[in-house]
C-alpha cells in the first residue's frame, strides 16, 4: 500500500514535470492563443463637405445584425428580425437556413435604434450585433461628383473613389488579454485608428443647387438630350458647381441611378467645341504676333480650302472685318483665314506648324488633371497628320474633340489674365489646402485684349442673350453640327455658351452646353446663353459679388 502511494506520488510529479517543463512551450502557445486577442479599431471614413462646411457625405453609426447558423428555430428568429428591422422575412429565413455553418450577416448596417429594439427581445441571444459604419449622403446633391462606396466603405465612384485613400484613414490595432467571454481584461498594446481625412470641396452647395436647377430647366425649355453646366472659380480653379442632365434622383441611392445619369459629362463626354474654339485660334494668333485685334481680313461668304467649302453661318457678301469683329459675329471664314494665312508653315504638310502647339498649350487633347475619376483627354489630331481639310475646320472648332471642362478651364485662363489654374473639386483635406498647379499661358496684355473682344460678343454679337443686368459679361457662343452616320447632321446640334463675369474683374467662368435640343432655335446663343445668364447671376449672388 505504501508502495502504491509512492508510485502515485511519483506519477503525479512526473506528469507535472512533463506538462510544465517538457511540453510547456507547446501548451503555453495554445493558452496564449486563447487569451490574446487582436482587434481592428475601425478608422472612421472622412466626411465630404462643401466650401462652407455643409455635409455631402457622412459616416453614420449603424448596427450589423448577424447570427451563428444553424439555429433551431430559424422561422421564429426570421420573424423577429424581419418585423423589427422592417426587412423581408423570406430573405432572412433563406439566409438563416443556408448550408453554411458559422457566422453570417443577416442585415448589414441596420438602423441602430431598430437594432437596439431587436436586442431587447428574447431572440437576441441567438443574434450578434456588431457596430459598423454606414455611408450616408444627407442631401443627395452633386451625386455624380461625390460618388459612392460599396457597403464595406470602399470608394467606387466620384470623389469617394479618387480620394478613397485619404478618406479611408488607417485602421488601428488593439492587442489585449481576453477572458472566455471575449471581453478585454487588460490591454497590451494599442495602435489607435487614424480617422480618414475630411474633404472640404471648392464646390458651393448654393451654386451647385443653381447649376442642378439650371440644367433641369434648360432641358425642359429646349427638349435637349442632355445639358451640361460648369461653374469654375477663375482665381483658384475650383469647381463651384457642376451638373448635367439626365440627373439622378436625389432622394434615391447612387446605385439606383443609371450609368447615364451619374456620368460626369463635363469630363467624361467629348464634343466638338465649335465657335467657342475661335477664341483659342485668335489667342494663338495674338500671342504669335501674327495679328492684333484690329487686323482686318477680307471675308467672303464662303471660301474653298483645298477640296472643302467653308461658309459662315449666315450668308453674306464679301466684307472687311477686324479680328475683333470676326469673333463678335463668329465668322468661320475669318477664323480659318487667321489660322491658314497667319499660322501655317510654308510646306504643304505644315498647316498646323504654328497653331498646333498652341492647341496643346491651351490644354486641349490632354486631361486637365481634375481630381475626379474618368476624365477624357479629348482628341486633337497630331499636326503632322493635318490635311488641308484639317486647317479648314479646326480653327472654328470642327474636327477635334474636347471635354466641356477643357473649354471652361481655357476661358478661366483668359479671364484670369492668362494664368491657367488646375481645375479641382477638393480644396482642403483636414484643413490643409490641396495645391493647384498654375501655368501662365498668355501674357496679361493679350488676355486683356481677348477679354475686351469677348465682351463685344455679349454686348453686340452672337451672345447678347448672355448679358446680365448689373454685371459685365464676356463670353462666346458655339453651335456645332453633330456627327450622325459619319457626316455632319443638318438637324442635330450642340449649342454652347462659355463666358465669365464680372468682365472687368472676373470671378467665375460659367459653361452651359445644350446637346441636341428639340425645341426652338439650335444656336448656342439661343439655347445655352440664357441658361448661362441665369446660372451666372445666381452664382455671383451666392458669392456676394455686387451688381454694378
Amino acid at each position, binding site marked *: 500500500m505504501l508502495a502504491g502511494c509512492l508510485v502515485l506520488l511519483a506519477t503525479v510529479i512526473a506528469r507535472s514535470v512533463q506538462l*510544465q*517543463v517538457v511540453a510547456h512551450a507547446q*501548451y503555453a502557445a495554445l493558452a496564449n492563443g486563447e487569451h490574446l486577442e487582436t482587434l481592428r479599431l475601425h478608422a472612421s471614413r472622412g466626411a465630404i463637405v462643401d466650401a462652407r462646411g455643409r455635409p455631402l457625405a457622412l459616416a453614420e453609426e449603424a448596427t450589423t445584425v448577424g447570427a451563428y447558423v444553424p439555429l433551431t428555430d430559424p422561422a421564429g428568429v426570421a420573424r423577429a428580425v424581419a418585423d423589427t428591422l422592417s426587412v423581408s422575412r423570406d430573405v432572412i429565413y433563406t439566409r438563416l437556413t443556408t448550408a453554411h455553418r458559422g457566422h453570417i450577416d443577416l442585415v448589414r448596417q441596420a438602423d441602430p435604434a431598430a437594432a437596439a429594439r431587436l436586442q431587447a427581445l428574447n431572440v437576441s441571444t441567438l443574434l450578434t450585433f456588431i457596430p459598423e459604419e454606414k455611408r450616408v449622403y444627407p442631401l443627395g446633391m452633386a451625386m455624380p461628383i461625390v460618388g459612392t462606396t460599396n457597403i464595406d466603405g470602399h470608394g467606387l465612384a466620384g470623389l469617394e473613389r479618387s480620394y478613397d485613400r485619404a478618406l479611408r484613414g488607417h485602421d488601428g490595432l488593439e492587442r489585449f488579454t481576453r477572458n472566455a467571454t471575449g471581453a478585454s481584461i487588460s490591454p497590451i498594446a494599442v495602435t489607435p485608428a487614424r480617422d480618414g481625412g475630411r474633404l472640404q470641396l471648392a464646390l458651393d452647395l448654393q451654386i451647385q443647387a443653381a447649376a442642378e436647377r439650371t440644367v433641369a430647366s434648360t432641358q425642359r425649355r429646349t427638349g435637349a438630350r442632355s445639358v451640361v453646366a460648369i461653374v469654375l472659380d477663375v482665381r483658384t480653379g475650383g469647381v463651384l458647381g457642376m451638373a448635367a442632365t439626365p440627373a439622378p434622383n436625389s432622394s434615391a441611392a447612387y446605385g439606383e441611378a443609371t450609368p447615364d445619369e451619374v456620368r460626369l459629362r463635363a469630363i467624361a463626354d467629348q464634343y466638338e467645341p465649335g465657335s467657342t474654339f475661335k477664341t483659342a485660334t485668335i489667342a494663338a494668333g495674338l500671342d504669335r504676333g501674327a495679328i492684333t485685334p484690329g487686323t482686318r481680313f477680307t471675308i467672303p461668304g464662303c471660301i474653298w480650302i483645298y477640296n472643302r467649302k467653308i461658309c459662315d453661318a449666315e450668308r453674306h457678301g464679301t466684307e472687311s472685318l477686324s479680328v475683333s469683329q470676326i469673333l463678335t459675329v463668329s465668322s468661320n471664314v475669318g477664323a480659318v483665314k487667321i489660322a491658314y494665312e497667319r499660322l501655317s508653315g510654308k510646306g504643304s504638310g505644315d498647316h498646323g506648324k504654328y497653331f498646333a502647339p498652341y492647341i496643346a498649350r491651351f490644354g486641349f487633347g490632354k486631361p486637365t488633371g481634375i481630381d475626379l475619376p474618368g476624365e477624357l483627354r479629348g482628341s486633337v489630331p497630331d499636326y503632322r497628320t493635318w490635311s488641308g481639310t484639317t486647317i479648314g475646320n479646326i480653327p472654328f472648332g470642327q474636327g477635334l474633340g474636347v471635354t466641356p471642362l477643357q473649354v471652361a478651364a481655357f476661358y478661366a485662363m483668359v479671364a484670369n489674365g492668362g494664368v491657367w489654374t488646375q481645375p479641382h473639386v477638393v480644396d482642403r483635406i483636414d484643413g490643409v489646402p490641396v495645391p493647384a498647379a498654375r501655368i501662365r499661358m498668355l501674357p496679361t496684355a493679350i488676355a486683356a485684349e481677348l477679354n475686351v473682344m469677348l465682351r463685344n460678343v455679349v454686348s453686340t454679337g452672337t451672345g447678347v442673350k448672355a448679358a446680365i443686368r448689373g454685371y459685365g459679361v464676356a463670353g462666346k457662343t458655339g453651335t456645332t453640327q453633330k456627327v450622325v452616320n459619319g457626316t455632319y447632321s443638318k438637324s442635330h446640334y450642340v449649342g454652347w455658351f462659355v463666358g465669365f463675369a464680372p468682365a472687368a474683374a472676373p470671378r467665375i467662368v460659367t459653361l452651359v452646353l445644350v446637346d441636341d435640343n428639340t425645341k426652338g432655335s439650335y444656336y448656342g446663343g439661343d439655347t445655352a446663353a440664357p441658361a448661362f445668364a441665369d446660372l451666372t447671376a445666381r452664382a455671383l449672388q451666392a458669392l456676394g459679388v455686387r451688381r454694378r
Partner: protein
Amino acid sequence: MVANDAIVARAETVRELHEDVTEARVHQLLRGTRRDLPVEGQILLLVTLGLTAFGQVMVFSASGPLALTSAQYHHDPLYFVKHGVFFTLIGVVVMLLAMRAQPRWLKVGGPGMLLVSLVLLVAVLIPGIGQYINGARRWIAAGPISVQPSELVKIGLLGTGAAILAARKTPPSTLREIARPIGIVTVLACGLILKEPDLGSSIAVAVMVFGMLFVAGTPMRLLALLGGAGLGGGLLAIMTTAYRRERFLAFLDPAAHRSGSWQTTQGLLHYAAGGINGAGIGAGTGKNQFVPEAHTDMIFSVIGEELGLVGSVLVILAYALFAWAGFTIAMRARDRFSQIVAGGATALIAGQAAINVGAVVGIIPLTGVPLPLISYGSSGKIVMLLIVGVLLAICREQGLTPTPRRSTTRGRSQPRSGPARFRRAAR
C-alpha cells in the same frame, strides 16, 4: 547627558521586558503544543493550517475575475474570499474543538449522523428541498447556510464504520462479512450521492471506507477484489451517463471529444502554461472563465499556472506529508476504533487530493471533487477541518497516554492489540 542615558536605559528595560514577555508566551504555547501533540500531530496541524491559509489566497486569485464579472456575486472580487474565510474560521474553531474532544463521540454520534445524512440524501433529491445548482441537486438550504448531505455522510460513515469494524474480534475476511453491514451502507450512501449526481463525492466516500478496511486489517486479496469492484462500479456509473461518458472518452482521446474535454483540456493547458516558476500569484489567465470551477474543483490548475512546477510540487508534497502524518497517527493510535477512524480520515483527505490532482494533470478521468482544504467550500470545508480535528484528537489522546511512545518498535511486547498489518509493517 544624564537624562539621555536614563531614557536609553529605560527604553532598553522596556524592550527587554517586552522580549521576556513575548518569549515566555511563545515558549508557553510551544511547550503546550509539544506537550499535548506528538510531532506527527504538530506536522499535521501545520500542514493543515498552511494549506488552508494558502487556499484562501488561491481562492481569491482564482475566483476574483469570475466574481467581478458576475452579477450573481454582486461584482465583488472578494465575494468568495469573504465567504471562504467565514466558513474557514468556523471550520478552524470546529477543528480545535474536535481536537480537544474525545474521539469517542464519533462512535456514539456516528450511527445517528449516518441515519440523518441518509435521510437528507434522499431529501436532497426531491425538487423543492434540494437546490438545483450546475445541473445537480447536492445542497439543502437551511436558512442562510447550505448543507451538502454528502459531507455529513462522510462523518457518519467514518464513525459508524470504525465502530463496527472495531467491535469485531478479527478483521473481516470474507466479502459477506464486509458487505454486512458496512458494505451495504456504503453502497447505499454512494448510490444516493451518485443520484444527485456527484460521482466525485461517492468516489471519495468509497476511498474513505477502503482506507478504513485497510487499516482494520482486511486481507489484501479481498481489498484488491473490492478495489476492482469499485473501479467496475465507477466505470458503470460513467458509461451509463451521457456527460460522464463524454468526459471519460475525452480523457481517453481529448481531440475527438472536444465538448466533453473543455474543462479537462483548459485545466491541463493552463496548468502546463505555468512552466517551472509560474506566472505569479494573480497573474494567471485560465481563471478568466477559461477553466470552469477554477476556485473549486480546478483550483490546482490555477496553482499550476500561477506558481508553476515549484508551487504545484510543493502542494503535492504537502499532501504527501499530510498522508504520512495521518497514517502515522493511525499506526500509533491508542485503540482500534481510533486507528480505523484515523485511517479512514487520512484516506479520505489524501485520497480526495489525489483524485483531484490526478484529474487536473490528466492521469485519471475528471470526476469533480474539490481539492481538500484549498478549494473554496462551505460545509465541505467545515467537515474537512472537523475530520482533521478528529485526527488531531486521536493524536493528542495518544500523546497524553502515559505509556511510552514507540511501543511498537521491534522486540517490545504489545500492550494493546493493534492491527496485524501495522505490527507486520513495523517489524
